[in-house]
């Protein structure tokens, strides 16, 4: 490995300092590029240089990753067939060197790693969505395979010897690991483990300020000048003068189609700005897309841009909106036939699968909007969230994560000259009453546990003090008996008294009148309770009704000194008249009834909600070819 060294620029003789032993290329302010080889030799090389850098990150920018500060030394900018991406060389204080991948608002730290040499031998024949074992017992899926058609340098950077064109392979495992393999020479592979981050997480300082510069280009169809707001990320645009569809290829913009088809225009004004999730976006593009199937469903898609956070999209169908962003941390599907997956604990189900065409467009796009007829889009939903997997042989697999967003919220932010589009039906991820069954069941379970805990807590210290428990005879000469008890002291601020009454009635009745009298205030609490038991034999069957035992309560009795007046009344004309009755009175008893009724009410809501949700979900899935529901029509 070559040490840090001081060199002289071969063109202007300025001093050039390689600040790290592994950096291989340094750019002089005069434009010359010096390449340090592994042998330690230095050589001036005719590499492309970035002439008018405009990016937020620049050499000298500082940031933080995983609690470690880093400094940006330089970069190479790689031009892929339909995208452009920066690989910044960053240096940590402990001398570790890494890359910071950046483009389209996505940020990731690339750290060198060693992968299985055997797996690299198979890379020649590896196609997107196919599997590779990069590490022992770890299966990866090739998500993207693309060629760097051109690369340019700025500052001081690490880039081993490579051809003017080389290949990059992006692979992901189901465990969340991501690896990028750079085939710099036919037999030279350099592998990096990729750690995704975000602009906010990196806490970048000493960045380049100002707006993303516009670029004026001549429309290849009408030769009029058109302003591109997000060059070089804009890979296609629509000429504002002749409406020709223009796409970027082989380093220049070319006419993709001048057959303007027409169709509904945008509802959001292009150029209007609005805040979504704390990010200020400008609406820079609009596309009316149509499914290439018998349904010919059309939806509108708006391209949004923020200099720091990159691109986002707003998709509108039947007045229902979804806010979508490309993601780096994504699900990994091992086969293309998978109809569901779990990601971050949420279960996503395949809702739709289609290819599409752009039938009307305005503005500019970070992808080639006009050659996507073979791109297969598969939508997996877990309302209000959605994952969209777009796959084609050229660009590989791209995942977008989306979330329902209300039209009203958007109307507050962006300019809708004709108002919001009318709403109809239920959107694919509209959160209307949506709650997955397992969440509903879990919430109900927690609620039941809470009730059990509270009920136990508040009934465990019940006194259940027996006030009296006796048999009381009724004199033969009378139809009633009555008595008054001694005083009881009730010490709880409020409680109850339970009366357990038993009378040996037989086709007869008995009535108990009980009155609790507050010895101090004279306040009375009274109840009447009948005991009836009748039975017989009719129409060949025996019957019985009533019971010889009854339970009655005096409830919410305040604390104080009480005595009890009791009167038992029997049916004196009955042939089976009773001789007496048993009475047990207990102070401060728990009521299981309270728990059971509470349980009923707490479980009623999920049951109703579930029935309602099933109806709504049936409607939501009505237009899906993957509906789990059956329909009568």
């Amino acid at each position: 490995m070559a040490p840090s060294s001081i060199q002289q620029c071969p063109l202007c003789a300025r001093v050039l300092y390689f600040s790290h032993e592994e950096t291989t290329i340094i750019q002089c302010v005069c434009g010359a590029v010096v390449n340090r080889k592994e042998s330690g030799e230095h050589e001036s090389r005719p590499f492309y240089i970035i002439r008018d850098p405009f990016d937020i990150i620049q050499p000298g920018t500082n940031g933080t990753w995983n609690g470690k500060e880093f400094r940006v030394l330089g970069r190479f900018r790689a031009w892929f067939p339909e995208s452009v991406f920066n690989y910044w060389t960053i240096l940590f204080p402990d001398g570790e060197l890494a890359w910071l991948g950046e483009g389209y608002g996505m940020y990731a730290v690339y750290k060198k790693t060693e992968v299985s040499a055997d797996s690299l031998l198979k890379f020649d024949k590896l196609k997107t969505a196919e599997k590779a074992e990069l590490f022992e017992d770890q299966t990866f899926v090739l998500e993207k395979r693309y060629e760097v058609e051109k690369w340019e340098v700025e500052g001081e950077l690490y880039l081993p010897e490579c051809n003017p064109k080389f290949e990059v392979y992006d692979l992901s495992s189901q465990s969340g690991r991501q690896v990028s393999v750079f085939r710099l020479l036919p037999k030279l592979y350099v592998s990096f483990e990729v750690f995704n981050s975000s602009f906010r997480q990196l806490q970048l300082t000493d960045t380049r300020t100002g707006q993303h510069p516009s670029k004026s280009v001549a429309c290849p169809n009408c030769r009029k000048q058109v302003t591109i707001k997000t060059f070089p990320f804009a890979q296609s645009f629509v000429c504002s003068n002749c409406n020709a569809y223009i796409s970027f290829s082989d380093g220049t913009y070319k006419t993709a189609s001048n057959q303007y088809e027409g169709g509904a225009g945008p509802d959001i004004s292009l150029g209007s700005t609005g805040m979504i999730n704390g990010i200020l976006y400008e609406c820079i593009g609009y596309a009316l897309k149509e499914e290439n199937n018998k349904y010919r469903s059309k939806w509108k898609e708006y391209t949004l841009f923020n200099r720091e956070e990159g691109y986002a999209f707003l998709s509108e169908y039947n007045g229902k909106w979804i806010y979508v962003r490309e993601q780096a941390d994504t699900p990994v599907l091992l086969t293309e036939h998978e109809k569901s997956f779990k990601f971050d604990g949420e279960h996503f189900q395949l809702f739709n699968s289609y290819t599409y065409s752009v039938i009307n467009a305005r503005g500019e796009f970070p992808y080639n909007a006009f050659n996507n007829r073979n791109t297969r889009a598969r939508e997996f939903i877990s309302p209000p969230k959605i994952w969209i997997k777009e796959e084609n042989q050229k660009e590989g697999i791209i995942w977008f994560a989306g979330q329902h967003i209300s039209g009203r919220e958007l109307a507050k932010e962006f300019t809708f000259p004709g108002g919001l589009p009318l709403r109809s039906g239920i959107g694919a991820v509209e959160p209307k009453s949506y709650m997955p069954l397992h969440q509903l069941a879990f919430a109900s379970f927690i609620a039941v546990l809470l009730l059990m805990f509270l009920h136990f807590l508040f009934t465990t210290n019940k006194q259940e003090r027996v006030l009296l428990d006796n048999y009381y005879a009724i004199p033969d000469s009378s139809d009633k008996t009555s008595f008054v008890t001694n005083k009881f002291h009730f010490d709880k601020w409020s409680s109850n008294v339970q009366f357990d009454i038993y009378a040996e009635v037989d086709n007869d009745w008995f009535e108990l009148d009980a009155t609790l009298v507050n010895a101090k205030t004279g306040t009375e609490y009274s109840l009447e309770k009948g005991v009836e038991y009748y039975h017989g034999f009719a129409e060949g069957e025996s019957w019985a009704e009533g019971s010889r035992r009854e339970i009655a309560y005096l409830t919410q009795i305040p604390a104080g000194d009480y005595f009890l007046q009791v009167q038992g009344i029997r049916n004196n004309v009955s042939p089976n008249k009773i001789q007496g009755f048993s009475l047990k009175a207990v102070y401060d008893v728990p009521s299981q009834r309270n728990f059971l009724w509470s349980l009923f009410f707490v479980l009623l809501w999920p049951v109703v909600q579930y029935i309602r949700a099933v109806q709504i979900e049936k409607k939501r899935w009505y237009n899906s070819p993957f509906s789990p529901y059956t329909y009568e029509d």
Partner: protein
Amino acid sequence: MKINFFKAGHSFYPLRWYILVVIAVAGLMAYADLSGMRLMTRPESQQWNSEGPGYHK
């Protein structure tokens, strides 16, 4: 920590009404358990006081 179940996007947002129902029911049950009340019963007891409203047979 600020918890607002009624803010769209909060992970408990779909459960917002249920959380309110559970709090209300649990509160009522706790009150009933503490005060000696029995939920969903027609009171069997009558209260009377010579100084105030009430009923006396």
